[in-house]
């Protein structure tokens, strides 16, 4: 401990350089944090996919509709516990295309909440929803985006589904659901199919896709094949796959762009680290003679090594920890573009990876010059100064 002041003095010797180095490390780790949040956002659906859930859609494309009557036939297939269907509604709030979010009628509130336990809704709201035909539930982040409260009347327009008699669809917000996990998307708007089906101008009895809960997750693949076999050779053939695979396919539609952005960000991160690391190493290399002097007055090789490493690790930590903290604060503020990235947060396990990289940076930047200094013969070092 008594050498702390020595490390401190070394750090203060060129204050400006120390500060600038800390700041570049800071920037690098802010970027790292944002990169992690972005990567998580692209794959969020995969992370929360339920192992016991299947998604069945029209074989040709997700935009093709399926008959509503499939619910009953699906439930009769062995291994199927329950099924709920969704239809893409494309609701627009206040006639502004930017006020766009995922809105869908769902066949049965009770079954919906059973199949998706990660949507946490208070019991009173659930009862209210069962009793209110025009009732809708919204996710916490969506409610925050528009300042909606329970009890609000929300009119939405749908370019796909005009209402009989024209005009906007009226909904009453009966509850705000929370996500059971941080990766749970709470930007959704769900309402009742009976209201939707009765009031839509056309397409009666047609629905978008089904989510099916299987009794035994180990049997999911078998049940998926049985479901597709049930509807084969009908005008509405299905493609059923585990929710994880479905979400993955969906995420990969972004494809090359996501990969590209992440590759570019990684390149940035390492470039900054390289430059900062080089400066840190430079700061030690300049003092080789001094380190020789320390050894001359009796410092052991190991102690010199520790002193140098402590210095570089301190710089890395000062910049890195504040950088990660700043990234955490930024992501805690929510998604910068909720319509493209509904889920945006910094997952804790990646924070740990960040911590690892901070120490890695400190050690690597300090190690090479420190090893040089350690191996230096005292006589040579002292003569160099002269």
């Amino acid at each position, binding site marked *: 401990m008594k050498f702390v002041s020595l490390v401190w003095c070394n750090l203060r010797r060129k204050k400006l350089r120390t500060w600038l180095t800390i700041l570049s490390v800071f920037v690098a780790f802010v970027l790292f944090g944002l990169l992690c949040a972005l990567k998580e956002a692209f794959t969020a659906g995969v992370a929360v996919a339920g192992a016991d859930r299947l998604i069945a859609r029209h074989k*040709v494309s997700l935009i093709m509709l399926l008959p509503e009557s499939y619910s009953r036939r699906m439930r009769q297939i062995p291994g199927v516990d329950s099924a709920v269907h969704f239809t893409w509604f494309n609701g627009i709030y206040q006639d502004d295309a930017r006020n766009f979010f995922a809105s869908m009628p769902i066949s049965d509130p009770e079954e919906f909440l059973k199949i998706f336990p990660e949507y946490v809704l208070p019991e009173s709201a659930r009862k209210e929803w069962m009793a209110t035909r025009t009732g809708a539930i919204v996710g916490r982040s969506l409610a925050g985006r528009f300042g909606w409260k329970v009890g609000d009347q929300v009119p939405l327009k749908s370019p796909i589904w005009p209402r009989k008699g024209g005009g906007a669809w009226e909904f009453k917000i009966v509850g705000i659901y929370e996500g059971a996990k941080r990766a749970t998307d709470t930007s959704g708007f769900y309402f009742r199919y009976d209201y939707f089906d009765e009031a839509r101008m056309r397409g009666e009895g047609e629905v978008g896709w089904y989510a099916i809960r299987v009794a035994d997750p180990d049997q999911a693949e078998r049940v998926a094949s049985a479901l597709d076999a049930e509807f084969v050779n009908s005008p509405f053939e299905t493609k059923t796959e585990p929710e994880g695979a479905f979400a993955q396919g969906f995420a990969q539609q972004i494809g090359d762009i996501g990969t590209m952005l992440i590759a570019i960000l990684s390149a940035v991160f390492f470039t900054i680290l390289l430059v900062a690391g080089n400066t840190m190493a430079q700061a030690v290399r300049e003092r080789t003679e001094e380190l020789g002097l320390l050894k001359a007055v009796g410092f052991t090789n190991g102690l010199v090594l520790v002193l140098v490493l402590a210095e570089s690790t301190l710089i890395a930590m000062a910049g890195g920890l504040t950088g990660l903290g700043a990234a955490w604060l930024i992501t805690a503020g929510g998604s910068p573009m909720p319509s493209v990235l509904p889920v945006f947060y910094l997952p804790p396990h990646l924070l740990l990876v960040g911590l690892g990289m901070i120490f890695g940076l400190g050690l690597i930047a300090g190690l090479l010059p420190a090893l040089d200094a350690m191996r230096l013969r005292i006589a040579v070092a002292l003569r160099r100064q002269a």
Partner: protein
Amino acid sequence: MISWLNQILSVTLFSLRTIPERKGSAFSAAIGIAGVVAVLVGVLSIAEGFRAAMSVPPNQHVAIVLRSGADSEMTSGLSREETRLIGLAPGIHEGPNGPMASSELFVMINLPKKSTGTDANVPMRGVEKEAAAVRGDLRVIQGRMFESGRSEIIVGAGAARAFSGLDVGQTLRVGANEWKVVGIFSGGGGAAESEIWTDAAVLQPAYNREDSFQSVYARLETEGAFQKFKDALSTNPQLKVRTLLQSDFLAEQSSILTGFIETIGMSIAGLMALGALFGALNTMYTVVASRSREIATLRALGFGASPVVISVLFESLLIALLGGSIGAAAAYGAFDGFQAATINWQSFSQIAFAFAVTPKLLVMAIVWAAVIGIIGGLFPALRAARLPVAIALRET
């Protein structure tokens, strides 16, 4: 004045000659700046490429008509009677076979993307005879045009590159239907190259669409004819439609994605520029510190403060420009023409496009590098000029 310029010249040349002595730190600052520039150009080239893929040739005056309230072709719907009325409106270019208008159907099919192997939403368009003439610049570059009334398709060049199973001669099975790929086309404006085209009359029954369409594309007589065309449609009591120029429609369709990429690109590049700026400042401060005795000697010999400031600034600018050029060249080599496909959320369909490193981006890259270089050099340069000569001379 002349002697002042002389001073600047000799001090600057002198400091440039000594750069090799500190090539390590100069090099690391240049690399930092090269990184910033490469990233900035790389990310923005995605947005540029996407925008280029979603644009129409400047002399192509095409109007698109959707159902009123529809924000994309996907959410639109028009009956046969409505499309007939639209085709009769004034302002449409009169071709050899009557008004140049095509009623079209827009659906999705799932095809595996070559790069990931997973299913993607590929747009499929049913068109009428006039469709190619309406667009003007559509060319079949391989194979032939589909024949009307048959289950034949032609594939946009971008789609053929990005998705599997779309080579000429292959057969595509979609639901109960089989489609034969008979040609590859290019041009057509907008996202056409990402699409698969067939005869609307064949696509309608295949997708249970009865006799309905989703949009009408019409070639206008002149650019000025648009208002006449639009007014005629909006005053027709039998129609409730939304009429817009194809260029405006495409800009609207790509706004979210380009906005997203540009936001990310700019904020990343901004952060990165900050990082590189710290690197440049560090380098130049080190340079000034290591040369303080030299600078003091020059000052003692009678060189003024401003030539010293300018020489330091110049060195920093040179390093930055070197880094900027390396970065711009690297970005050009790595990104220009890179083929990609991504989903456009607003049309819910895949768009194939090529990254485009445009001259505008390269100029911007160099400007960013220069700004970083000047700011990075300015403070150290001022410090150099303020060095007290006597103390600096005594420094070891």
